[in-house]
């Protein structure tokens, strides 16, 4: 696949993520605007950091859910962090799921998972 085809494919995938509500158009565009010749790998760097943070948070959340009784305050705190970083990167759907999860935490609802 040549370079132009790759670019077109990435653009199509990105548009699809916008259209399906996974990615926030405006937020992600603002991130892309910070990438330039002086900072050519900025988006990749930020996304990599997001995945690393997310993996750590998901692991912590899974561990918290295994405990009995569930510490909802701790879970809520993890979800607040996850929601925050997802919002910053424009991961709209993840952010929405985190908000919903936090409602369950506040209601002390362990079955909502």
């Amino acid at each position, binding site marked *: 696949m040549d370079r132009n085809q790759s670019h077109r494919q990435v653009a199509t995938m990105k548009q699809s993520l916008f259209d399906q509500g996974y990615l926030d158009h405006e937020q992600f565009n603002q991130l892309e605007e910070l990438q330039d010749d002086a900072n050519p790998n900025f988006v990749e760097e930020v996304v990599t*950091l997001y995945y690393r943070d997310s993996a750590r948070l998901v692991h912590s959340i899974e561990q918290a859910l295994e405990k009995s009784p569930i510490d909802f305050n701790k879970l809520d705190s993890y979800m607040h962090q996850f929601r925050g970083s997802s919002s910053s990167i424009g991961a709209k759907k993840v952010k929405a799921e985190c908000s919903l999860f936090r409602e369950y935490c506040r209601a002390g609802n362990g079955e909502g998972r």
Partner: protein
Amino acid sequence: MAQQGGSSSSGGGGSLNVSPMKPLASLKVLVVDDEPMMRTIHKAQLVRAGINDVEVAANGKDAVDLHVNGATFDLILMDLHMPIMDGCQATKELRAMGVKSSIVGVTSSGGAEKTAFLASGLDDCVSKPFVLQQIAHYLKVPRSPTNPPKYHNP
């Protein structure tokens, strides 16, 4: 953005109690946030604005320690939720030390938590992550040493 009495964006001295406007390239900014991703995003915005002297700290204690060791900054971007020492405590300690830099809280929290954060000694509180527009005023008008922070409780 709300202004402290006596300050304006027009720069210069005269009757205004404000230091002359410093060029962006000479401003020193400290970014305090426990998330590597947020530090990266904030730093990129500041560099894009023309500020090259950007230092980072991963929690409130590191930020305080920098000042204890003699560092000074024109602007501090302070996250709220951080391990070891949060933004609220760090801001209180910095103000208690006599730090007069502009300190702008950066948080997605609201309500009572945000109010408490502001009352710890912040000049302002902005939302993550795209702070540049929200802090533009502080990049143009570094505070004069005699101009106290907006929310400081002495």
